[in-house]
């Protein structure tokens, strides 16, 4: 069971890290600005997931604290950028 | 009055989150939780949320149900969209439709929009304060019906939570 779990965790981790590459590609070659922004947003979701996986691997909940900070701030920054894109200004 | 209520609610909410995050129910930590909640409420001076205090148990139950529905919606939503994505034909019929939630308050509209966005195939693009939502649907032709139904249930729960 533990071995399986371990294997799955690593596999999941590698899959998610690999998917980051897709996001980079998206930001590089997105159709338009919104597409790229979506790429960035999904990147932070992936990073969140990876942080959780690291927490699992390390068996340490401190990575959750990192993840909370990430989640709160990525929402803020994505919305702020959406605002900029729509409005050419932030506030 | 209303703002004091809001402040108390925020205090409680903050205290709960604090306790969740610190994972410690010592009496001193409870005190700390409330002190922190009060301090933050004082600093932010909330003025919007007002929970129906008089019917607290009911409100709590409704809240739980509401959250459950949300989760369920999210699950459904994930599965539905996932199916679409996996389908090689990509069976979508997207479009933006207008939905009148009937909510009068800002908060109500917001919560509706929030819930709607979590539901399968719906995404609020624009909204105003009077309950009008403009929703991008993956399946524009028959979503109106579904949305209306779901909306009704949520509306009822929300009205039980909030005054």
């Amino acid at each position: 069971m533990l071995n399986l779990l371990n294997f799955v965790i690593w596999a999941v981790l590698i899959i998610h890290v690999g998917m980051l590459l897709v996001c980079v590609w998206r930001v590089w070659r997105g159709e338009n600005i919104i597409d790229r922004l979506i790429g960035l947003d999904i990147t932070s979701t992936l990073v969140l997931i990876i942080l959780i996986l690291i927490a699992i691997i390390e068996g340490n909940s401190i990575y959750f604290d990192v993840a909370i900070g990430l989640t709160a701030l990525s929402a803020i920054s994505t919305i702020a950028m959406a605002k900029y894109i729509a409005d050419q200004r932030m506030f | 009055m209303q703002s004091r209520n809001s402040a108390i609610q925020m205090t409680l909410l903050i205290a709960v989150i604090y306790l969740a995050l610190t994972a410690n129910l010592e009496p001193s930590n409870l005190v700390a939780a409330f002190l922190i909640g009060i301090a933050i409420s004082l600093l932010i001076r909330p003025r919007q949320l007002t929970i129906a205090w008089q019917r607290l148990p009911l409100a709590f139950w409704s809240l739980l149900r509401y959250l459950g529905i949300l989760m369920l919606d999210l699950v459904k939503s994930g599965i539905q969209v996932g199916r679409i994505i996996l389908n090689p034909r990509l069976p979508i019929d997207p479009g933006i439709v207008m939905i009148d939630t009937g909510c009068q308050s800002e908060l109500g509209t917001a919560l509706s929009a929030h819930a709607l966005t979590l539901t399968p195939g719906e995404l609020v693009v624009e909204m105003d304060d009077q309950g009008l939502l403009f929703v991008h649907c993956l399946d524009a032709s028959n979503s109106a019906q579904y949305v209306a139904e779901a909306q009704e249930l949520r509306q009822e729960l929300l009205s039980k939570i909030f005054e």
Partner: protein
Amino acid sequence: MLSPWLVLPLLTIGLAAVLPVLFFRRKSSTLRMAWLMSVFPATAFGLLLWLSSQVSPGKPVTIQLEWLPSLNLSLSLYLDNLSALFALMVTGIGTLVVIYTGYYFRKDTSAWQFLAYLLLFMTSMLGLVMAGDIITLFIFWEGTSITSFLLIGYKYKTEDARQSAFKALFITGGGGIALLAGLIWIASIAGGTDYATILASGNALRGSPYYPIILGLVALGALTKSAQTPAHFWLPAAMAAPTPASAFLHSATMVKAGIYLLARLNPSLGYTELWFYLLTGVGIITMLVGAYLGFKQNDLKALLAYSTICQLGVMVAMIGQDIEIAYKALVISVLAHSLYKSALFMTAGIVDHETGTRDLRRLGGLARLMPKTSAVALVAGLSMAGLPPLFGFLAKETLLATSLHPSLPPIIGALFPWAAVAAGALLLAQSGLFVYDVFFGKPSDLQHPAKGHEPPAGMWLMPAIPAVLSLAIGLLPEPERLASFLAGAAGDAFGSPVKVSLALWTGLSAPLALSIVAIFSGCILFIFRHRLRPAMQTLLPAIQLNAVYNAVLQGIDRGAELVTRLQRGQLRFYLAIMLTSLGILIVLFQAIPLRYLNDLLPSTPVAPGRLDLLRIFTLGLAVLSSLITVFLRRDLYAILALSISGLAVALWIALEPAPDVALVQIIVDMLATVILVLSLTRLPRPQREKARELTFRQSRPGLLRDGLIAVGSGLLVATLVYVSLSTRPHTSLVSPFYAANAKPLTGAKDIVGAILVDFRSFDTLFEIMVFAAAGLGIHMLLHYAARKAGDQEEPDPRPLAPDEHPALGVGGLPTSSLLHLLAYSLLPLAMLLAVIEMMYGHDQPGDGFTAGIVISLAVGFWYVIFGYHFTKKQLPWLRSGYLIAVGILIGLINGLLSTLFGTGFLSPVDYGSMLNLPLPSGFNLSNSFLFEVAICLTVLGSATYILDNLGRPKEADPESDALLRTIEEETIPQSGRRSA
């Protein structure tokens, strides 16, 4: 012999130099002041007479003041016959010149300045000749250069005066630098600076391999000062000085400083071939140049200046000799020249002052108008002409005698006498010009004949005294005391006793014959002057050393221009040069550890762990997305890629594993993204598009340059990384300590946090100050400096809706309530997170910095969602300046508290357990908590300053506007903007 009295003459004059400033500023008439002032040099003269009577050959009077014992330096004075001779001339003629100045400037109430300069100069000059060691000498030497600069430039409103003053300073100052080097060198070889030591180390000096250089340096100083060819040209230019200054500086004193120095050092540096040829050569050439050029002049003072140059050449040539008679000639020349030349200068001043011109062509027949002055001129002029029975005759005789001395080497021996004859003849003709043409002949320019009258008695009496002395010394049969005094002086210069007799008539001799030849040919020159002088104007104009001087200055200016052109204003160019220089230095220092790199390569572990692969992959992602920022054209796209790169770096850090840093990296990445985009909103789109175009249209060489620099820098870092990684594990002398002591000593589980707020809290204390300075700076810059400068932004193409809740969207729609909901929830949540991070930061990731940034970003989110004004109104406590101040103050107080209750500044103290407070477990009310609060507040203040100012730079701000108005009233109004 030691005598403290030696300082008195110097003090007397030094005091006098200060007095005009202190007491006479525009109160008294110049004449009265001058008479009063003259008491001081006169007193000094008297003192010096008394002191010099105590001097006997070989037994100077000295006094030494300890000055810089660490450097073995003292200030000392020294009086032997040689220095007494010069000192007496300085004070004696100085007295006359001071009085003369009073008359010269009698109508000018601001001349107290001139008197002050003159007396300062006199102090320097007296100090120079009385100095007892070469450093003291040098100090006063430079003093004469500086004060003469002020005197020559006294009439500074004229371009001529300024240029001449600068010229003199440039030449003598340059010489001074050489001299200093030479003197220090002498001192280092001799082992001391005082004369006694130096005079005793003649052999060591002459034997030193550096002797030629030392001699060159000293000669450079002395010969430039004494206006020797080819540096003589500053002296005629220095005639721009008021005549009293010329009469003093350029006859008796400053120009003789070089002579004095050479004479002084002759016993220790002289008596070598080099010395002989150098001084004789320069001296003879100068003599001829001065004599020749002087005869061409139309300006009385220029004529006198050149004749001075001629005489100075004679003196230098004398010092070059190693025969007794030359030193007799030297001292006699020095004295005779001082007497007649000061008289002549003062006379020229009278002529100039009374007639308004010094032009020979306009002057003539003044004897009728000013008989007394002309008598003085006649006597002094005859002395200059070298005619008996005047003292000048004796000077010329001894010179000729020297030139005929059998010991001279053949070529010099053949040339010297005839050069002396030629110079003598020209000098005679010159004095004819001065005396006859001015006072007795008719002006050649009849259109503008000069008119004038006799000056006040005091004025002509002053030149009369030296003139009469010239006559008296010649006429008196044998002034025994003077002769022995001069003999002593000559002996001091010669290094062994010299016999001096002042008898004019020594019988028929070869010198006399030459003298007669000189007088005869001088008369012929004078008679044919009207033909010769115009011819000379065209002949040999080539000796234009001024052109050389100008070329040198132009060369300097050219070089200067080249250097300043290097400062071309382009930051990129600067950075490129610096990075390249860094590379060059690295190569020159052979700092790249090539041989180690070789050693390390095979030892690289081959089998990487799973985590390693992930690490390298995330690193690759980070690099890739940074690289993308180069290629993405639009700035916003690049910023998005940058944001991803930052996140990838955060992941790498999380995998390291370093959760604390990962959290901060994430937060900072978000902050950086937000404020970068925010600053995009501040730059007008056309501007950005233009910059983008230019960036992507860079030339190939430019790209190559930047690329090479980038690759080079990259290799540098790669090397650093590679070596650090390959040599792992290394020993850290500190980390084990931190790991072992974090929990027991600071109560922190988070070792990194413990380092930040405990072990290296001093870093953190000032790091937040840096952050505070940045925030405060942005506020000062955008809210004060920019406003004051009236910086005008181009009008906003999309003005804000007047609504307090500005729309998210285009059409004036309000922000959606969904976002309101999120914003409402995020701020308290952010604050809660912040509180938790501060409270439990010692056990988990997050610290005060994270806390502050999280809150400020949530506040920034409110700006976005609710609008700036609403947020400001809703959160009145958000006052960045105070937050910063309070934050740092808490940091400081925290440090002090732990001094009181702990073991020292910023030492760990747990106040909670100290006071037995029932606190939640895991939370310590300790110094680190206080510190985290301090950090959080400071960072919050600063970050909100940053957001406010970048987002709303032109936000109406009554506070700064009011202050700026006050400032505008307080300061003196400016009439316009800076032009260039």
